[in-house]
């Protein structure tokens, strides 16, 4: 099996198939992250495609091809964050009261929603991009703060604060749901 560095070298010289092998090697690892960040599988697939295309175009700037996976993770995280920010702007134009929408969605389910993936995902979707990202990296992808710092460029203190705030907000949201 070719190493990441070998495949990166081939892809950099224009071998798209080599890049597709890298994609196959890493995309499952980043699929869940993208879905949790973006909120839907279809949109996550588009976002991941865009991220991988950006990665292909930027291969020349991958300084350490043996750590291609970590480099790719940065691009995926950036793409997801950008998407979430844009999505939030769009939704703010359409829905002024997200809490009303959220409560309505939960109420309409007619079942005890505690702990269901759909509801936790929905609550997660109410967090802003950086808090959502921090929570997903820490508690879903189970990264260390050092790994998170490398990917996001933020320092560990800031990341801990983001995670703490994300937890607090998630807790508030889910408590509200259970009170509905």
């Amino acid at each position, binding site marked *: 099996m070719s190493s990441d560095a070998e495949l990166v070298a081939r892809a950099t010289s224009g071998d798209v198939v080599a890049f597709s092998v890298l994609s196959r090697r890493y995309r499952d690892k980043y699929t869940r992250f993208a879905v949790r960040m973006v909120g839907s599988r279809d949109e996550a697939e*588009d976002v991941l495609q865009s991220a991988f295309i950006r990665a292909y175009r930027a291969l020349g700037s991958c300084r350490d091809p043996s750590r291609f996976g970590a480099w790719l993770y940065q691009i995926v995280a950036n793409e997801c964050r950008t998407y979430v920010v844009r999505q939030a702007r769009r939704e703010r134009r359409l829905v002024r009261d997200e809490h009303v929408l959220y409560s309505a969605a939960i109420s309409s389910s007619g079942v005890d929603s505690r702990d269901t993936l759909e509801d936790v995902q929905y609550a997660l979707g109410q967090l802003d991009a950086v808090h959502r990202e921090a929570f997903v990296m820490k508690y879903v992808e189970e990264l260390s703060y050092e790994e998170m710092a490398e990917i996001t460029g933020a320092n560990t203190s800031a990341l801990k604060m983001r995670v703490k705030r994300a937890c607090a907000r998630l807790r508030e949201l889910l408590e509200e749901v259970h009170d509905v």
Partner: protein
Amino acid sequence: MSEIEREGDEEFAERMGRVLRASETFGDTFEEDLVRAIRADRQIDQPPPRRPTPLTPVWWRTPAIVRISPAVGLALAASLVVAASLGTLGVALKSYQRTGMVVAERVHDTVHVVRFVFVGKVNSVSLVGDFNGWGAMAMPLVASGSGETWVVNVPLPRGRHEYAFVVDGKRWVADPFGMSNTDDFNTESSIIAVGS
């Protein structure tokens, strides 16, 4: 006090994490779509096109001697159809054998494949535009069906593009149904807005 309120922060976060750790996968065509999108992306990364200047001895400024009756000309114009639309992969809008059409496929968020269709009794058709440097032979259309329907699929980035058809290697034909633009040399081309 609710159960959530009784939980510690770490316990609560771990529980949410467990729920969210459910696996997610995409379809088997992910890499196939990716390779296709990258190839399309590379095509649009060619050097910025320029319209030929009057001093450039290019084919399309050569006066074309084409004898065509008004009726045939009208029929040809009416049969020339080009359109563009956004859509998801493989969504056919109409049957172009009858009406002319374009299927646009979204390759990724900034690249779309636009199908240009020319219908007419001609020997050859090429597509020229700002996306291929106005090169007459850059994008030949391929005849299909009865031989009167000519088609080419072109990956285009989001934005405004100018284009025209070159019929039989020398005649410049703009889309009669699209927005048109006439340049300083009185040459008419058409405008397509991709992604708007």
